[in-house]
């Protein structure tokens, strides 16, 4: 296989989420009609404020929570009727640290492997523990480990059965800079090995650094899923908002070359330009605008960052 395309065959979805919804017993709607395809081998980052439904979505796919509506397939198999197949492919690192305190590291990790139907394999477990710098701690009781180490034990458990899909629910929450970098490295390494990775995070920077695609969830709705590169391109650009005195139904033909977007029901035009380009085209646009006879009320430029996109999305959906 050739270079860049070798790892991501994004044409094949390994996880297909269709119209997924969840209403908890108390009546709270945690997911509303979410549809999403996760490509084989990609790294997908899910962003969203507290309570957005990220953990709920992951929990449904993994079998911890029952969906109220919709369906999910993993590797072409339904997660309910064919759970043995789908679950054996999935590793989950939960958001909360939940470990048996008086067990040793190696027994805890070995248990996970067995639970997923795999034969004991000391060599493989050693490899996993070493890659997470846990080998020296293998005979220590969980209760004696620090928080960051416990999180690594959770990761080791999830990797113990050689999953093809790995869910990391806020893997870097409460983790120091050093360990965070280590985790990113690990995620990349796993991704290079062909593991599909879905992670949730509150750090936009983190999503930017490691994800191939970024999804934004708020109040149980998937607001956006886009390639990071596409998003980044938007970020390298600036936008100029042109407020008009009176709204227009369509952008005049004379301005077609500027690819203006209409917003606010036609009373605002948005011009996106590349700050790095030699000519921004602003002067010419303003002159052409004048020629069309449109009256301007205000002008404003802004840098669109992922952060801005995120904040805007979340705010407008709330």
């Amino acid at each position, binding site marked *: 296989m050739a270079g860049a395309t070798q790892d991501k065959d994004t044409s094949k979805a390994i996880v297909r989420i269709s119209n997924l919804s969840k209403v908890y017993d108390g009546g709270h709607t945690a997911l509303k009609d979410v549809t999403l395809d996760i490509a084989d081998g990609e790294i997908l980052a899910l962003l969203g404020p507290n309570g957005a439904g990220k953990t709920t979505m992951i929990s449904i796919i993994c079998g911890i*929570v029952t969906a109220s509506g919709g369906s999910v397939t993993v590797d072409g198999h339904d997660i309910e009727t064919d759970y*043995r197949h789908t679950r*054996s492919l999935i590793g989950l690192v*939960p958001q909360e640290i939940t470990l048996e305190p008086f067990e040793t590291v190696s027994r805890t990790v070995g248990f996970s492997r067995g639970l997923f139907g795999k034969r004991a394999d000391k060599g493989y477990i050693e490899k996993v523990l070493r890659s997470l710098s846990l080998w020296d701690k293998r005979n220590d009781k969980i209760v004696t480990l620090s928080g960051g180490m416990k999180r690594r034990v959770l990761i080791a458990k999830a990797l113990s059965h050689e999953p093809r899909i790995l869910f990391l629910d806020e893997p870097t929450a409460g983790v120091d800079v050093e360990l965070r970098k280590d985790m990113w490295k690990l995620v990349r390494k796993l991704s290079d090995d062909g593991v599909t990775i879905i992670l949730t995070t509150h750090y936009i920077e983190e999503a930017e650094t490691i994800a191939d695609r970024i999804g934004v969830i708020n109040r149980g709705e998937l607001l956006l899923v886009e390639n990071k590169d596409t998003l980044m391109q938007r970020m390298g650009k600036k936008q100029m908002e042109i407020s008009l005195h009176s709204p227009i139904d369509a952008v005049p033909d004379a301005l077609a070359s500027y690819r203006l977007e209409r917003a606010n029901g036609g009373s605002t035009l948005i011009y996106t330009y590349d700050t790095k380009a030699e000519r921004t085209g602003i002067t010419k646009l303003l002159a052409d605008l004048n020629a069309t006879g449109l009256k301007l009320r205000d002008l404003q430029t802004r840098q669109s960052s992922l952060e801005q996109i995120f904040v805007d999305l979340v705010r407008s959906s709330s």
Partner: protein
Amino acid sequence: MNTQAVWAIYRFEMARTGRTLLQSLVSPVISTSLYFVVFGAAIGSRIEEVDGVSYGAFIVPGLIMLTVLTQSISNASFGIYFPKFLGSIYELLSAPVSFFEIVIGYVGAAATKSLMIGMIILMTAGLFVPLQIDHPVWMLIFLVLTCVTFSLIGFIIGIWADSFEKLQLVPILVVTPLVFLGGSFYSISMLPPVWQTVTLFNPVLYLISGFRWSFYGAADVSIELSITMIGVFLASSVAIIWWIFKTGYKIKS
């Protein structure tokens, strides 16, 4: 069938038992010895033979049942409640295991532990009174069936309980009284007729009676009835487990 998983759960649970082996075994041994000192020696010396056996020997099967029942329930209920309490149950739910396999792993481990304890008590008892076991095979069958059945009941309690208080409620409120009133320390023929009739409604009576029959060949109720009752217990526990599995009761949100 994911036998690897069943085995993994079983071993993990047995390891917990192993870690606490001393406590698990020492306390039943001590309490059994105390029972023998108090009931067997002090009180027993003033009681005539019951059904042709010395009082000390007479209480051995009841004592074993008392401990095995309580231990089965507490081991199994704790075994499944603990991961629920810690949250580590997420892993069981996300693993390619069926509910049935989970039950076998946990109940198997709990039953093994109580069987071990039952045997230890039997041996401890041997230090105090001469043991006589007329039907050793039946004795073992009764013991194993009781361990399994009450571990199943314990598992159900562990799933149902959402606090440590509830976890202890059933054993204290229901099981201990039933066992004490089920003829552990007396033959129901020693009771006034009215109470004899009342006692017949106590399901534990049938277990103890059958178990005692396997030792001394004498029983309060017929052996067939005892076996039937164990079967009923087992079947009801399995039915409830099956219902939990079907409805996902208290396991999944």
